[in-house]
């Protein structure tokens, strides 16, 4: 949060124009980028992935309003996105069957309001405490509503869920949103609006006080702020943006099921946000993009991609609790000192052995998995373009030998990287 503190100090020190060019630039770049993406990737599959990404980004940013900015760990956040989505689906059905006049682009507003309503309701008792108690209540509420979704058939549609048709509403400027492209632009516009809204929220006094409550709730209380109300307001705001993501989900997939509410969905958003990095506003965005890409690409090539993600997640928590963004931000200081060049050589040397080490680890797991689960007569497996019999001992031995060699090299080179890192972070005259 040091980045935010310094910017606060700056803004109070000197009067600034209403919208400083420097802080508007990244947003303009993001808008331009989103507008041109479909030109580069026009295929239907790519558009679906990009829509998925946009929704995940909104959801992850909303989740980080709690985890990163207010220090609240929620294990049941899928509920607010899911409930917002379910309500929007019913609204869409009202549009279709009861001639309700509601242009599709405005649907996320209602999704957000539903999310807000439920966050207000549940937050009224869950935000009284932070930390473990909040986490447990969020888990309980999440499980409760996920279990209800099978019992209350009228609203949640039981096991087959609720589906609808987005194209039945009034046309807006001649668009009926039947094509993926139109839906993409609708999603992209809402992504920008929601992200901007959440960014501005983090800059308001209430957003700042949320940081204070996260860091030391007692001191915030002594300053005259009710920690409970601060948490409640953050929770409601987060619920609102989750609802928007839910509405976009309803528009994109036209179906919502129990899966949108359950613990697996709540868990994966925690994973995404944490992988991206909770300490920075941009963190969840990076997390969502990387996770969606990993999920799409890895699941094409391997059956055990969830195992890899699990390993990646646990390693991140243990060694890089600041996430991917934190890893990048670590290099800001050498960059500012003009010594980033010192790191290039040791990094380049380290790259090959590190890649081989990871590769041999992956190969070992794939071979063992294949050897254990392959059906009879299908002992041949293909890995990195090489075909061999997974039941033999030879491939395993070769992979272990290569991995051990790479591990030795990594250990050998590690002191050099450490030394270069210390050098690069050392300012002259200190």
């Amino acid at each position, binding site marked *: 949060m040091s980045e935010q503190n310094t910017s606060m100090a700056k803004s109070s020190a000197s009067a600034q124009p209403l919208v400083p060019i420097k802080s508007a630039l990244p947003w303009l770049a993001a808008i331009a980028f989103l507008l041109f993406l479909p030109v580069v990737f026009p295929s239907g599959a790519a558009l679906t992935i990009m829509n998925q990404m946009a929704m995940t980004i909104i959801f992850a940013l909303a989740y980080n309003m709690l985890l990163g900015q207010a220090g609240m*760990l929620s294990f049941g956040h899928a509920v607010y996105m899911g409930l917002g989505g379910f309500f929007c689906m019913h609204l869409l059905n009202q549009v279709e069957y009861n001639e309700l006049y509601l242009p599709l682009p405005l649907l996320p507003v209602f999704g957000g309001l539903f999310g807000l309503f439920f966050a207000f309701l549940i937050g009224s008792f869950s935000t009284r405490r932070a930390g473990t108690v909040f986490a447990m209540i969020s888990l*309980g509420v999440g*499980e409760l509503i996920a279990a209800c979704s099978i019992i209350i058939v009228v609203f949640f549609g039981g096991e087959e869920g609720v589906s609808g048709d987005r194209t039945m509403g009034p046309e807006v400027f001649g668009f009926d949103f039947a094509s993926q492209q139109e839906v993409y632009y609708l999603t992209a516009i809402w992504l920008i609006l929601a992200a901007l809204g959440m960014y501005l929220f983090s800059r308001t006094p209430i957003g700042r006080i949320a940081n204070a409550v996260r860091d030391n709730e007692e001191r915030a209380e002594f300053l005259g702020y009710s920690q409970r109300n601060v948490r409640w307001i953050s929770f409601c705001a987060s619920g609102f943006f989750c609802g928007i993501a839910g509405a976009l989900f309803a528009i994109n997939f036209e179906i919502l099921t129990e899966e949108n509410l359950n613990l697996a969905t709540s868990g994966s958003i925690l994973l995404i946000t944490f992988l991206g990095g909770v300490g920075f506003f941009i963190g969840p965005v990076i997390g969502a993009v990387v996770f969606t890409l990993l999920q799409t690409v890895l699941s094409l090539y391997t059956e055990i991609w969830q195992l890899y993600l699990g390993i990646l997640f646990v390693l991140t*928590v243990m060694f890089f609790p600041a996430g991917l963004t934190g890893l990048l931000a670590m290099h800001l200081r050498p960059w500012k000192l003009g010594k980033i060049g010192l790191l290039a050589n040791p990094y380049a040397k380290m790259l090959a052995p590190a890649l081989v080490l990871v590769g041999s680890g992956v190969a070992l797991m794939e071979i063992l998995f294949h050897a254990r689960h392959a059906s009879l007569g299908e002992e041949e497996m293909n890995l990195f373009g090489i075909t061999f019999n997974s039941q033999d001992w030879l491939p395993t031995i070769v992979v272990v030998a290569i991995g051990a060699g790479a591990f030795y090299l990594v250990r050998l080179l590690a002191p050099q990287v450490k030394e270069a890192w210390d050098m690069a972070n050392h300012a002259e005259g200190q």
Partner: protein
Amino acid sequence: MSLFIVNILDGLVTGLLLFMLCSGLTLIFSMMGVLNFAHASFYMLGAYFGYQISTYVGFWPGLILAPIIVGFIGAAVERYGLRRVHKFGHVPELIFTFGLALLIEEVVQYFWGKSQMAFEAPGVLKFAAFSIAGNAFPAYKVFMIFIAMGVFLVLLYILTKTRIGMIIQAALSYPETVQNLGHNVPMIFMGVFGVGTAMAAIAGVIAGPVLGTFPGMAVLLGSIVFVTIVIGGLGSLWGALVASLLIGWLQTFAAAYNLRMADLLVAIGLTEPVDVAQSMLSDLWTLTLPQVGPILPYLLMIIVLVIRPNGLLGKRET
């Protein structure tokens, strides 16, 4: 009446099984102030190891060996994982154990696949211990009751009557003072974590043949375990016992009595609409108690937390 007694006994089995997990979890919580999200995963590991060992040398060695192996894995997780994350704060600790729970589930699927294992109760215990009005009560369930009671009594004895137990209790409240008196407090923490996970593994081995040994068993029980210790009061052993039995009976009775919501609504003077299926409130009229059963523990937790944020017997602020 006889059905009532059978349900009391069945609920006791479920409750005591829950308690074997909750007691370890609550001990670990009062020690480190962090809820071990992966606790139910150690229960699952216990069941799988018990199954794997039972295929080589039979059920009984598995009952001894699996908890020992899981206990060592638990101790290693504390030593090399949690202790490392501890310095980042409570929230990263909780996230770490959550990630561990995901990882253990994936690892179990990696080695044993997604289908249910053929883990069976030992042949010696495959007879009806007694029967109540024609309902046979299997000897294996009696065995489960005795194991769970035995574990609880041993735990209680060690914690309250022995020197080790006194050191552990002291280390929970005043770790620095105990450290200054020359005791190895990190070692005690590691030991308690190991014993807690080993108890979960015992529960896993004895529950595996009855509740099924499959990759979803941790998630299925995990949330209920958290709900139970929150209801009982975080860190309270007696609270965990009361809440476990309460939840055990709640679930058993809800599953056994087919009360219909419609009967209740008629009893308070409402009339059932003719075309129930078309009505907006159709779910309200067609609900039955067994359907509502799974959500009762969560409802109970929310009610308890709203009325008594510290849980039934909890004293600690968290």
